[in-house]
């Protein structure tokens, strides 16, 4: 039995079915990401001064990822246009470009950005022990400049076993530049390009630490929301890429030969989903990376 209204319009809606379906689905996706965004907003507004980090994410890499996703949106529109003009070869190439852009986006995120976070260590110092670590925190300098207080020492943890072993009483940390030289005015603003941890070592006693983890979702509300939103977004990107691969394989050529308008409509509908994913990223990028 043929699926009805894949190409012809339904009399009551005036549209072919998949178009109504995908917009309804996108409406529900807006609710999903809207809920997560509102959680982000209120977590951030509620955070005490100094507890919401800035400049922990790599801006040039994030900008490049944004550009890749925008480029993939452009190529998927060109793929659909090629299909409408019945140019299958052009469609095939544009679809391949879209798939590759999506894969590059995911690779950069999952192989570079996320593991770099998992490898980074942060220790929140107890309020009454803050003065003891002033040489690493520079809070007098921050207060004089009207900046929020620094409550965390971050860097590369040399003795990873200290995290789980209660017998080890200190953390050996190769400090991040902001903690190695906290009174330097260059440290008041997050760096544009990523600067790796310095070689300056600090020993932090576990008794002075409120909580210490690698940069995982459990580290702070900031990372919990970052990993949740970008993780869910990444899953949407992956789903989109998988569907595009199906539309690119020879099985789609068979549909093209039978009913090219049907394939064009399928590509349009998947393109709509892909544009929505791009749209979400356009909001995620400034909220997490730039602000």
């Amino acid at each position, binding site marked *: 039995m043929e699926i009805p209204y894949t190409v012809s319009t339904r009399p009551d809606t005036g549209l072919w079915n998949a178009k109504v379906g995908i917009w309804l689905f996108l409406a529900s996706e807006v609710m999903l990401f809207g809920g997560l965004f*509102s959680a982000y907003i*209120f977590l951030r507004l509620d955070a005490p001064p100094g507890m919401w980090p800035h400049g922990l994410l790599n801006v040039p890499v994030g*900008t490049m990822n944004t550009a890749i996703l925008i480029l993939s*949106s452009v190529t998927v529109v060109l793929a659909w246009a090629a299909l409408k003009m019945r140019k299958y070869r052009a469609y095939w190439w544009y679809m391949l470009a879209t798939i590759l852009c999506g894969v590059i986006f995911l690779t950069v995120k999952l192989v570079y950005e996320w593991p770099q976070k998992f490898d980074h260590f942060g220790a929140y110092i107890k309020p009454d022990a803050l003065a003891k670590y002033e040489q690493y925190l520079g809070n007098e300098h921050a207060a004089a400049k009207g900046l929020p207080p620094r409550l965390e020492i971050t860097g590369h943890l040399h003795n990873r076993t200290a995290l789980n072993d209660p017998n080890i009483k200190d953390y050996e940390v190769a400090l991040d530049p902001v903690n190695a030289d906290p009174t330097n005015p260059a440290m008041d603003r997050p760096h544009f390009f990523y600067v790796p941890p310095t070689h300056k070592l600090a020993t932090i006693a576990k008794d002075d630490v409120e909580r210490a983890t690698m940069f995982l979702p459990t580290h702070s509300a900031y990372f919990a929301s970052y990993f949740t939103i970008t993780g869910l977004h990444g899953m949407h990107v992956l789903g989109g890429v998988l569907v595009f691969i199906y539309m690119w394989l020879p099985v789609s050529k068979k549909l093209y030969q039978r009913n090219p308008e049907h394939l064009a409509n399928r590509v349009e509908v998947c393109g709509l989903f892909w544009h929505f994913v*791009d*749209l979400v990223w356009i909001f995620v990028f*400034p909220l997490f990376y730039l*602000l």
Partner: protein
Amino acid sequence: MVGATLLAFTAITVALSYVNFGAPKANIAVAMLVATFKAGLVAAIFMHLAAEKRLIYRILIFTGFFVLGLFWLIFLAWYDYPVAH
């Protein structure tokens, strides 16, 4: 061409984040304005919303209303304090 505009505005977004508009809230407002403009371009032109039928608009009006409702629901917990046991 729309793609080039989007890429240009991405660069503008990054550049603007380094301009100090006074209060941090102003920076957020500016960034969100630029993001909304970019999102509007994607929605109107890439997603053909500018040429869409009225049924789609009706679905999206409902969506807008419900998303604002979602935000309001979370805001209702604004003044709740965590209870220390």
